[in-house]
Every structure is written in structure tokens, then in C-alpha cells.
């Protein structure tokens, strides 16, 4: 019955403005529909009046279109069943947090054994926390679920590691399957794709491999950037892509960067992948991070103070995976030590932001490597020249000194030979800003890091 109402809502959504829909129809529910007596639960009497006065016709026609017999529609004030805080029952075999984690692990293992379409049903849209960092991608995902293979085809999703790419595309797959269990969906990481492909070629079954994909209604390829240097696989993928696209089948691809920035990806393929636009997942903002942690806490049934959540959100700035990792660690610790998370934080037992990577590198080494990478001498780079490539190298050096060794800006200034710390601060900020957009720079810095530690 719930699903019927969801379908009706989806239809209503297309007939009223977004603002009106989210105000009046969110948090409504279908309470009963016996013998055509429809009862709809709403937030308060203001909603009753408005829905009856303005939207009754739309509601009735939407219900009728979903094959519901409508004789009479009534509205009833009911505090929304969804948002109500559920009281938690602790069963015997789930008494402690450790056990809960264990069962979660077991469950996920079981799922992994069972899957054939590559989908893991723990990824759903319901447990995907929507924020300003990902709302565009999520709304596109929702429209794919409503109408696969139409508007956002192919759906190209990109973003840094641990920001929820896999979660979102798996959720699309799961949701599609829920709506229509007969759909043929395949989720495959790129690495599986090419290893399967190689195996198929070796066994002389290349054609079958291709045919397997052509039968699909929806293909989800994860971590497409690993296709680098796999030219044959790429060609095969290109063929599959074209076949599926011709048949209006939904194709979903994720990657950590835009296709044009993946080395050795054919231009024809790159442009095809972003035909329907590319959606990015960004780092969550502070509020989004809090929301994510809160959702996670609810999911685990764990209790954690708002202050503790804020502390973690403020101090983990890398990605959502790290965020959840820190969160789990703190919860586990609180379970073991018998203190609440906030007490742990206050007495200094956990310090999220002090996970500095202590590696045996000296500032001098970093400066040398950077200079070498940019084909400059150390003297040149640490001089006063304002030629742009030299200046840029210098800023990269400052950035790495700050990030890798956590040196103070004053110290960096003296290492790199610039006048004062404000110059350093400016340099670091500039690189940080550029990193967000400039994938070439990201690669450069990764390469330098490899040189430093490698």
C-alpha cells in the first residue's frame, strides 16, 4: 500500500511545483484504502485544509491511475510515521556494539556470497544522506529510477574516493530492481570487467562475453579510471556501450575524474560518456557531515552526543569513508571503556585530527624532489624568481611541506626562502583551491608524492 502511495506521489510531483510538492506532500502517508475509503495521514490541520481545497482532484486522479478504487478521500492528522523516533529493542544476541558490528559484518558477507548481479542490498537511497554536496547527483539518480534509459543516459558520476559513488550507483540498481524484479542489472567494478574480458578472450569466448552484456537492461560500471592502458577492454566496452545505448538501456559509469582526464581514454568514448552530463560528488560541508554521522548513528542504534558528532565532523576533512571510520572507532572505544563518546573526546583519549602521518622525510628531501620534478634546481626554485612555472613549483613545495610534514608557515617560509609566512599561506591556499578543479595538478602532486615516498 505504501508503494502505491509512492507511485501516486510520483505522479502528483509532476503536476505541482516543486515547492508546493515538498511542502504539502512530503511526510504524507496512506493510512488505509478499504472499499474506496481513502485515508491520508498529514502533518496538521493546516495541511488537511490545503490538500482538500487545492489538491483533492489531483490526488484522486493519481490514485485512480494507480488502480485504486476511490469513493471518498479523508485526511487525518497523524504525526508522520516515518520521522517518528523508533524505540529500540535490544535483543539478546545484539546486546553490545561489538556484537552489532559483528552481525553487520556477517550479514554483509552473506550478501556478498549470494550476489550475482553485483548489487549489495545494504546500499539504498534511504540510507544515502543527501546534502548540498550531492543533491544534483541524487536528483538525477531519482529520475533514472523513475525512468531508466531516458534523460540521464549515460549517467556519469565522478568524485574523489570515499564520497559515495559506489553507494549511489548501487542504490540506483537496488531501487530499479525493487520496482521491477525482472530487470537485468549488472554492477561490475572496472577491474572485474577487464579481468573477465581477458579470461573470456583466453577461452575463446569473446563473443559470449559481449552477448552477456547485450542482454542487460542496466549496466553499472564502477571506478572507470582503472581502464587506463587497457586498450582492448576499452574497445570492448565502447562496443557494449554503443549497443546498449542504441537500445535505450541505462548505462551508469563512475570514476574519480572526468573521462577526458583519464589518460589513454579514447576521445570518442570520453565524449560519449558525458553526453548526458557529468555529475560530481563533492566533499560534504560541515552540516552535511553532521547529518551523515547522525544517520549512521541511527542506523547502528548507537547513542552519541551532538557535540561529539560536531567534533568528528569538524576534524575529519578527507572523505566520508574516513569520517565513518573515525566514528566507528570512537563508538567502539566508548563501548570498551564504558565512557560516552563526548567524555572520550573531552579527556583526550581520541584525537581525530592528530592522525599525522609520521614518515621519515625531511623538508630538504621534499624540496629537492619537487624541484627535480619541475626540472629546476633547488636554488632556482627557492630563489626570488616570479616566473610563473617557478612560482608554481615553489607553491607546490610549500603545499607539500605543510600537508606532509605539518610544518608551521614560518618554518616553511625559511625553508623555501620566501619573505614571510603570509606568502606561504597564500601559496598553500592557492594550491588547495586549484586542486579542486585541476586534475592535472592533482596528478602532478600524486606523482611527486610517489617520488618522495617511493
Amino acid at each position, binding site marked *: 500500500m505504501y508503494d502505491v502511495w509512492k507511485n501516486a506521489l510520483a505522479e502528483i510531483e509532476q503536476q505541482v511545483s516543486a515547492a508546493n510538492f515538498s511542502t504539502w506532500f512530503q511526510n504524507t502517508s496512506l493510512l488505509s484504502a478499504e472499499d474506496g475509503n481513502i485515508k491520508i495521514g498529514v502533518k496538521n*490541520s*493546516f495541511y*488537511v485544509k490545503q490538500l482538500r481545497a487545492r489538491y483533492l482532484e489531483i490526488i484522486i486522479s493519481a490514485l485512480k491511475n494507480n488502480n485504486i478504487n476511490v469513493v471518498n478521500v479523508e485526511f487525518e492528522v497523524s504525526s508522520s510515521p516515518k520521522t517518528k523516533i523508533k524505540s529500540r529493542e535490544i535483543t539478546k544476541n545484539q546486546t553490545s556494539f561489538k556484537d552489532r558490528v559483528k552481525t553487520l559484518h556477517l550479514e554483509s558477507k552473506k550478501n556478498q556470497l549470494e550476489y550475482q548481479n553485483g548489487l549489495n542490498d545494504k546500499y539504498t537511497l534511504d540510507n544515502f544522506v543527501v546534502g548540498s554536496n550531492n543533491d544534483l547527483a541524487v536528483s538525477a539518480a531519482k529520475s533514472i529510477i523513475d525512468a531508466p534509459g531516458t534523460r540521464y543516459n549515460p549517467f556519469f558520476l565522478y568524485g574523489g574516493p570515499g564520497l559515495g559513488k559506489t553507494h549511489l550507483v548501487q542504490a540506483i540498481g537496488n531501487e530499479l530492481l525493487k520496482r521491477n524484479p525482472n530487470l537485468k542489472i549488472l554492477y561490475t567494478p572496472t577491474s572485474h570487467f577487464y579481468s573477465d574480458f581477458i579470461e573470456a578472450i583466453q577461452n575463446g569466448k569473446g563473443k559470449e562475453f559481449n552477448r552477456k552484456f547485450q542482454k542487460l537492461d542496466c549496466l553499472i560500471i564502477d571506478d572507470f579510471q582503472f581502464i587506463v592502458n587497457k586498450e582492448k577492454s576499452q574497445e570492448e566496452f565502447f562496443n557494449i556501450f554503443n549497443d546498449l545505448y542504441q537500445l535505450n538501456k541505462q548505462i551508469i559509469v563512475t570514476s574519480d575524474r572526468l573521462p577526458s582526464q583519464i589518460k589513454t581514454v579514447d576521445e570518442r568514448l570520453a565524449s560519449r560518456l558525458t553526453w548526458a552530463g557529468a555529475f560530481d560528488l563533492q566533499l560534504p560541508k560541515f552540516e552535511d557531515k553532521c547529518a551523515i554521522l547522525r544517520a549512521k548513528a541511527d542506523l547502528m542504534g548507537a547513542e552519541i552526543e551532538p557535540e561529539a558528532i560536531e567534533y568528528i565532523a569538524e576534524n575529519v576533512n578527507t572523505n566520508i569513508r574516513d569520517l565513518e571510520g573515525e566514528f566507528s572507532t570512537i563508538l567502539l572505544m566508548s563501548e570498551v571503556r564504558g565512557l560516552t563518546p563526548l567524555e572520550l573526546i573531552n579527556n583526550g583519549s581520541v584525537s581525530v585530527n592528530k592522525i599525522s602521518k609520521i614518515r621519515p622525510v625531511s623538508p630538504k628531501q621534499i624540496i629537492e624532489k619537487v624541484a627535480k620534478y619541475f626540472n629546476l634546481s633547488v636554488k632556482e626554485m627557492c630563489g626570488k624568481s616570479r616566473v610563473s612555472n617557478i612560482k608554481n613549483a615553489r607553491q607546490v613545495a610549500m603545499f607539500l611541506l605543510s600537508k606532509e610534514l605539518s610544518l608551521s608557515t614560518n618554518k616553511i617560509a625559511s625553508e623555501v626562502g620566501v619573505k614571510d609566512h603570509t606568502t606561504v599561506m597564500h601559496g598553500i591556499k592557492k594550491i588547495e583551491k586549484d586542486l579542486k578543479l585541476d586534475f592535472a595538478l592533482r596528478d602532478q602532486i600524486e606523482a611527486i608524492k610517489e617520488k618522495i615516498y617511493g
Partner: protein
Amino acid sequence: MKIKVTQEKLSKALNNISRIAIGKVTLPILNNVLIRVNKKKVSLITTNLDMAMIDFLPVSNSEEGVVTVPAKLLAEFISNLPKGEIVEISSSDTKVTISSGKYSSIINGALADDFPELPEINEKQAVTFKLSVEEFKNSLSQVIIASSNDLTRPALTGVYFNTYNHVLAIAATDGYRLAEKKLISKVESEVNAIIPSSSLQEVLRSVSDDVEEIEISFNDDLVRFRLGEIEIISKLIDASFPDYQRLIPKDCNITTVLNREELIRVTKLAALFARSVGGSIICETKKPDTFSVKSIANEFGENDSKIETTVDQTGKVNLNSRFLLDALNALEEPEISFSFSDRIAPILLKNKKDQKYTHIIMPLNS
């Protein structure tokens, strides 16, 4: 649409009702005030979907029509116009022209189509009470202080209007203290409704000197207040209020009568030393004639004040000084009764003569 009205009247009405027109991001039209002229009757309406405020503005001259205008902007514009002038508001489509003497401006309004329809009280089923504004305002202020703003317990975020033994009473609690006031002693109809404190705050703010009577009408899920030309409609909280009568102690072992002003003074003194211990103070009765209030702050020192009274029995209780002060300020008579049993049962505060108001506070663990 066209209305002509004095600046004072319009400004007062707009300032009052524009308070709740704080936009929901999802529905920007809620930032607006709806101005409607229908059969010579002018109404200004705002709503935040939890409540609505309507002002039936008496005007000298009007033409029919309806339009919505950003409420805050209009309120501020009107309140900055010179006093005593006549203001004329007219609209064509969504352009709203406001002119007054030398001043005139055009505000971009919005069509009224998107403005929500307001629920109405079903007069036939309604249970209606009339009260003097003065009494209602005082009583509500005495009770509302005890309501909670913890949204996870919705029932406690409002004031409970209920009837028992033909008495209409209002009550509020946040789980640590409870206040009850009996409003009308002989009523026939029954009511059980929790009105959100936020709506009641708006009712209190809308009270003006020239209105003497307030009319309150209840439906199953709606309440309406009528205050002269102002009407306030609010949702009710859909939850059940705790059976609070059971919480009020029936008889207490220890009862003392104290001078209210004196107790306020010594509580304030004690509170100064109680800051580091969460405001915890110790009240103690000592034979034959001492009521003492003590607080200890390890780093600052300690405080011990005494009030003379008659004491039959000795006892001791720890209280939150802020809660005690709130209660004492809500009580009215110069002499009050302070009753308690032991260190865990709630304490009971009442005026010495008038028994309509009851305030109880849970003691702190010592």
C-alpha cells in the same frame, strides 16, 4: 484591491502578524502577507503552516481584491512612514503600490493562488471558552515557563488545556517541574488539547491594552483565539500529555509559610555560589523557627542564609535554583507555602491564600 487606513493601525497590525512570516525555504510565499478585501472586510493573513494570524483591519475606504506582499518588507516600510498619515495600498496584478503623502513605493508582490488555504474552526463541534484577557495572559505566563523545548518529546513542548471535575485547567511540564493553573471553575464541556508553546507565545505578544476579552475555540486538531480584531489559529500537538494529576503530591510532611520576596533574595544569593554545581542549592528547615538556603562552591566559598518562620518538622531538599526562582516569580502573593516530604519527592509551591496555581519541582540528587 485598494485600502485606505491610518499609518498607526496598519503598522501595528503588520508588525504583529509579520512575526510568523519567516520563510520556509521550501515555500517562499510563506514570507508574504495576504491582503484580502472581500465585501468591505479587509483581512491581513500570515501563516507558517503551524499557525496562522489574521488581522481584520478596520479601514475607511476599500475596493475588492487580493494580493500577497513580502510581509517583513511591508511592515518595515509602513512603520517608517510618518505617524498620523493616511496610507493607501493598491494593487494591479502583482504590483503593489503604497503611497502616503510624499512617500510612495511599488513592491513586487505575488499572486494569491499559491497562498495556502487556512483551516477553519467547525463552529458546531467547537468547544468555546471566554476569559478576561488580563487573567488569561497572567495565567498563561505562569504556566508556559515550565514547558519544554525538547522536540523529541512533542507532548511537553506545549501547554495542556484540560477539564476535570468541571474545572478548566492549563498545565505544562518539562519533566523536571510542572505548573498548573485552574482557569474556570464551572465548565460543562470537555476539552483535552495541547497547544504548542510557540503559538501561545504569539498569542501573548498579540495581546493589546484595548482588548478585554479573549475567546478560545477548540476542534479536534485545531484551536482558534479571538482577540478583538485579531484571530490566531494554531494546530494542536498530536500527542498525549502525561497524567499530571498523579505527579502533584497530595500531602506533604513538611510545610512552611515564607515571605516570597525574602525567599527570592536568598535564592538569588545562594545561586551565585551554586554556579559551578549546576545551580544546586540546599533548602533546609530547622526547629524551631529557621528556613535556611545553602550553597557550596568549592572554589569560591559558601553561602548560608536564613529566613524566620515556624517549623514543625525538620527536613532537607536539594533544588535547582533557577527552577525555584522561576516558580517564585510566577507566584503572586507576598506569602507562599513551601511543602516537601523527603529528598526525592517533588516539592510543592503555592500561594498562601489563592489555591488556583500549583508549581512542583523535582529535587536534585544530592
